[in-house]
């Protein structure tokens, strides 16, 4: 690292020069990332339209493929790695992911229960007034 004149240990997200010796670096890294992303996208679109896959598994499969593709983008395009020079970037990312999961998961959890309870009330009212 110090060979290139980077005396400080932290690397910026998306920085090209510091990760110059890793697999996800340079034009080759971007090309690998593009290939992986294309494969994952094609799988996603194929699974959404085919009848060969057990249908109740399709939403889970699409979400898993989306998360995998986001990981590919993070590693190959944004150069976020697990190395010690990326610790700050990864901690910030982890906090962001935590908030995102809380907001989306919490909203869906609460609203599903709310809809379920409202459904019960509507049924009860229907039974009361035949």
């Amino acid at each position, binding site marked *: 690292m110090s060979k290139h004149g980077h005396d400080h240990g932290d690397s910026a*997200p998306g920085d*090209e020069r510091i990760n110059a010796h890793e697999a996800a670096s340079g034009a080759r890294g971007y090309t690998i990332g593009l290939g992986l992303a294309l494969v994952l996208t094609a799988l996603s679109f194929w699974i959404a339209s085919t009848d060969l896959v057990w249908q109740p598994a399709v939403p889970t499969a699409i979400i898993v493929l989306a998360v995998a593709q986001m990981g590919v983008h993070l590693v190959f395009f*944004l150069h976020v790695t697990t190395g*010690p020079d990326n610790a700050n970037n990864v901690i*910030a990312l982890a906090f962001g992911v935590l908030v995102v999961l809380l907001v*989306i998961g*919490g909203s869906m959890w609460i609203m599903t229960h709310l809809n379920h309870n409202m459904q019960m009330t509507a049924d009860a009212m229907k039974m009361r007034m035949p």
Partner: protein
Amino acid sequence: MSAPAAPEAARSDRHDPYALGRGGHGGGGHEATGHGEGGPAPKRTVVAYGFWIYLLSDIVMFSGFFAAYAVLSGETAGGPTGAQIFGRGRVAIETLCLLLSSYTCGLGSIAATRGSRPATLGWLAATGVLGALFLGIELQEFAELVNEGAGPQRSAFLSSFFALVGLHGLHIGVGLLWLATMMAQIWLKGFRPNVQRRLMCFNLFWHALDIIWIGVFSIVYLLGYRG
């Protein structure tokens, strides 16, 4: 108050007095991250980290729109459902445009690291064309939906759809303006350090928008298409 410390102790106090995070080097130059050596990080690292924090907050804002869409996607108020209005061909083309633009944007940043101005401008122009293509297709889809009476005022589902996808399209539009500005700056000013930092932030922004689009096409279009 006791007597002033011995010169030996005073000198070591100027370094980290609690020896926090030092691995047995006695305050000597340890190279690893987080060990407090070498003073503040270079401006390039600080700027990119600050922009990274902004991007994460932007993604948190998107999560609110995603949550609204997830909750409201079934509330069609007798209007069209996702399965009726979403076609996969157009979304596949949009996804391809944005993915390729992310790729050309990355190649542009490599060209900028090499210091090659024509290559950087060329890749950035390709990024801009692909981004504009994406935005054009999206606007065409919005216009068709509004003409069919499936505008944002039709149902809660369509409101949340237009809000989420429109917010992403707005980001792409702002990104295109930023891209044009960066191309002008590289053209006129060359690779000054501040221009390079702005270009790095633009790269982060563009890649982050592609990551958000993965969520949009998976959750809105592919899951919505199945109904």
